[in-house]
């Protein structure tokens, strides 16, 4: 079913403003999405109606807060097909979730000579934690080759796995720069065949398409709520229960113990073990509201909407002389990175901004990928449920304006 975008847009107050004298066109959704009224309202209701700490008080407010907080966990678990809500660990963002794997599992097990396999297309958050762990242990990192079309060389991946000693594999389900959708299920299965554990950076996947973690069979996935309508300060780590049980907590203190004595302590069950201290209660309750919102739209419909927009954008952008679009045409995530010959991304985005069009320019926290692509930076337009074809027309118009402004033929 097609999304009723006009109605959806009414739910996003921020979209109805002028930017530099033009109606705002927000195409930076891969960085963070806007928040609908329903999500903002969930924050207001909590703070005005039942603000209290969770898991502690016996009074009614505390019970209501705990129910809502744990209710959000259950919604998120259902949203990704998790067998149990207790496998969903709340984190500040995607980055923290990935670091928890590094600190809670990998660092304890990595030995000199062990191999970590990842790729050159990764976001720094899915790279630096592993580099650091490898350095500390004297382990080695091997990178899956990137093919010219922006996909990973699966034969090279096979070879790396066959070379032996691979303990851990980490890759992104969707690249935040190239838009590449990696074959998650296949890549996970191959890693398991050589006995490696696998983390999937699903930060750019979960907001955009139906996800079933049981089907993927990954050992962990990381995601970010703020990229799927929820407030900033929200993300989660999902893990297989036996691995979560095996893992060490990253933080210690209140709320994460089952018993504490002067002689030592025992950890609480998952997920409490990983959530020391007072959590970000309001924002996770609002994350629950965001998941409700997306679920009511239907993730198949969200995916189809983005796919159609992206195809349209690809076509329109291709009409522009001197443009280079990065990554595969299809299948791809709902974003397109591009370069316009002779116009540096900073200059381009200055003109776009003056025209009310917000895109992201820079290295997108993927400097190694910029080196592979041999560009200093790229421009990136990323789409979500409230974007329209008319907005893509505005993007194209503004790109032509930029070319004209910098004195190129259009």
């Amino acid at each position, binding site marked *: 079913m097609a999304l009723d975008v006009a109605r959806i847009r009414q739910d996003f107050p921020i979209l109805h*403003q002028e930017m530099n004298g033009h109606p705002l066109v927000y195409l930076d959704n891969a960085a963070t999405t806007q928040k609908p009224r329903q999500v903002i309202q969930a924050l207001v209701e909590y703070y005005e109606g039942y603000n209290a700490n969770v898991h502690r008080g016996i009074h009614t407010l505390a019970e209501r807060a705990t129910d809502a907080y744990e209710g959000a966990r259950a919604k998120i678990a259902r949203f990704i097909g998790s067998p149990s809500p207790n496998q969903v660990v709340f984190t500040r963002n995607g980055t923290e979730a990935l670091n928890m794997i590094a600190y809670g599992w990998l660092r304890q097990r990595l030995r000199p000579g062990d191999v970590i396999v990842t790729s050159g297309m990764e976001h720094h958050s899915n790279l630096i934690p592993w580099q650091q762990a490898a350095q500390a242990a004297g382990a080695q990192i091997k990178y899956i080759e990137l093919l010219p079309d922006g996909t990973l060389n699966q034969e090279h991946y096979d070879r790396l796995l066959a070379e032996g000693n691979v303990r851990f594999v980490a890759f992104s389900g969707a690249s935040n720069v190239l838009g590449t959708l990696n074959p998650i299920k296949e890549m996970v299965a191959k890693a398991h065949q050589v006995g490696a554990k696998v983390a999937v950076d699903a930060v750019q996947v979960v907001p955009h398409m139906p996800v079933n973690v049981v089907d993927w069979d990954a050992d962990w996935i990381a995601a970010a709520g703020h990229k799927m309508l929820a407030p900033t300060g929200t993300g989660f780590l999902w893990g297989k229960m036996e691995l979560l049980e095996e893992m060490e907590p990253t933080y210690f203190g209140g709320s994460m113990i089952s018993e504490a004595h002067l002689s030592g302590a025992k950890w609480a069950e998952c997920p409490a073990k990983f959530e020391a201290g007072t959590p970000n209660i309001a924002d996770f309750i609002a994350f629950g509201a965001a998941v409700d919102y997306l679920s009511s739209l239907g993730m198949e419909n969200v995916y189809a909407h983005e796919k159609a927009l992206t195809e349209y954008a690809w076509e329109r952008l291709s009409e522009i002389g001197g443009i280079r679009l990065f990554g595969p045409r299809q299948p791809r995530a709902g974003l397109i990175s591009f370069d316009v010959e002779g116009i540096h*991304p*900073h*200059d381009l985005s200055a003109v776009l901004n003056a025209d009310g069009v917000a895109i992201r320019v820079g*290295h997108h926290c993927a400097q190694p990928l910029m080196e592979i692509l041999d560009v200093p*930076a790229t421009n990136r337009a990323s789409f979500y449920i409230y974007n329209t074809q008319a907005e893509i027309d505005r993007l194209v118009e503004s790109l032509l304006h930029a070319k004209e402004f910098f004195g190129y033929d259009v």
Partner: protein
Amino acid sequence: MTSEARHPVNLSALYQQVILDHYKKPRNKGAVERAVLKKHLHNPTCGDDVEVQVSLGEDGRIDDVKWNGRGCSISMASASMMSVALKGKTLAEAQELMQSFYRMIQGEEGNYKALGEIQALSGVSKFPVRIKCATLAWHCLEEGMKEYEGGDANG
């Protein structure tokens, strides 16, 4: 709403004609023959990359300045304009020019006539994220001078 949202961005305040001219027709690109001062800097956040080379004549004045790099129009135009302005200056004068440029780019009130056409970059002060672009070549000069003077003192 931020103030920028309420006051439309004035593109031509940022990109004055002389900036676009230096960007399109960069002056003094290349390498000097006997560089006494040479510095390469990179701004990883935007990928701007500039190297500046300076040679001194017998009278101690800058007799050649060349630069190379890639980046946005602001960083490239700034390097180009700087290279033109430095020729014939003593290092002390270059230092003075640089301090004056830094003050202008930070948006401090003042008389910047001595900067000549470089004043076209004054609009950058209203775009804080672009200040780093405008100052990259000047930072090359600054650090190059420091190294040169440090080397002199030691040797």
